[in-house]
């Protein structure tokens, strides 16, 4: 167990280091997020009511796209430079590696997005309310959407598709997360309800994805190494 934890930490640390040294590559997700949100605000115009209706869907779609944009090629470089091949031979299991990659994505991409979400609310005419109330649902959603991106990019890497079909592969897993996530965020904003039924569904979905994604991603990567 100690060994698995050590490998997870090493992989996550290495990915964060690579992102920081990549000349701003880690900013890709959050920059896209900021631009998308700003354009949506302009697209819906100055009507306060229309803006408020659009707030939660905009945050969620921006999060989804930003994560997929940043994570779609997460296994490509390790497949290309022989790292994954080497780990696949030398380590009995790739599970710790995959979990390390996930933690890396959450730190590099998810972290900035979660911090940005409450700020977005202010742009969407929610100046008066306690904007931090949406954090639990958005944070949980970022985890679930990252998990969907992980399995999609593992399958994609195995097929050597280079990330082109990640969005399609992740769709069946992302859509339920979006449906319950947007409702949970809306309820949090409108009635300060954090632990709503929708939030419970979102939690269940996230736990379900946590249970299946690492194992299936390992299987996909193993097939890709053959």
């Amino acid at each position, binding site marked *: 167990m100690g060994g698995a934890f050590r490998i997870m930490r090493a992989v996550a640390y290495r990915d964060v280091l690579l992102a920081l040294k990549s000349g701003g590559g880690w900013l890709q997700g959050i920059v896209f997020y900021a631009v998308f949100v700003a354009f949506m605000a302009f697209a819906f115009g100055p009507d306060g009511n229309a803006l408020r209706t659009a707030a939660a869907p905009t945050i969620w779609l921006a999060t989804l796209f930003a994560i997929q944009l940043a994570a779609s090629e997460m296994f490509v470089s390790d497949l290309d*430079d*022989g*790292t994954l*091949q*080497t780990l696949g031979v*030398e380590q009995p299991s790739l599970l710790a590696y995959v979990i390390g990659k996930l933690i890396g994505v959450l730190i590099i991409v998810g972290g900035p997005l979660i911090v940005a979400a409450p700020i977005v609310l202010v742009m969407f005419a929610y100046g008066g309310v306690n904007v931090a109330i949406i954090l639990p649902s958005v944070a949980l959603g970022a985890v679930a959407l990252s998990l969907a991106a992980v399995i999609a990019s593992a399958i994609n890497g195995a097929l050597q598709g280079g990330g082109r079909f990640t969005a399609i592969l992740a769709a069946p897993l992302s859509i339920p997360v979006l449906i319950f996530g947007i409702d949970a965020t809306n309820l949090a904003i409108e009635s300060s309800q954090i632990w709503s039924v929708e939030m419970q569904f979102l939690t269940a979905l996230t736990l379900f994805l946590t249970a299946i994604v690492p194992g299936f991603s390992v299987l996909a990567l193993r097939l890709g190494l053959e």
Partner: protein
Amino acid sequence: MKRSEFEKINLQCSEVACARGGVLVVGGVSFELSGGEALLIYGANGAGKSSLLGAISGRLPLSQGELNWYHENEALTQRQAALGVAMLAHDGATKPGLTVSENLRFWCSIYDKPKGDIASVVKEVKISGLEHRRTATLSAGQKRRLSFARILLANRPVWLLDEPTASIDDAGKADISAMIESHSARGGLAIIATHEALDISHRSLRIG
């Protein structure tokens, strides 16, 4: 595993065949190899050297035959066998964006070795002074030396090397041969897929 334990390792291959995409690439390969020995797998490009190495490493499934690792006559599980192997893949498993020492620190954590080991392996593969260079700026020969630094760091009894001397100059080849020789001398087992002769005492297997 301790160094004295290295020579107790033994590999037995009988009638191994390996297929890729339903097409038989190598077939009927049998050999036995013990600690202290090096096996060179010769063959032209496309003869199936990498596939055979992939099958030996457990990465590719065998379509026929049997392949077993032993430690003092005791069969090793797949897990134990994997933990005995250090692999040099076609690409060296280093990140161009990281420095030499950052790359080696990552592998130190993977292999659970103290970071203090880095200085000695860097010296052993003769890339001292390059520790803070970005790996992308190294020459092909220096990158290969870095990959060997990783393999020395792993300190594992079995070396599986895929074309270790490809695009390397004569001095580099001599150093790589010397490293394989000293691995054999301390009881290690090495299997090397290559299309050119190496100046080491070895057994050979010609395929294709």
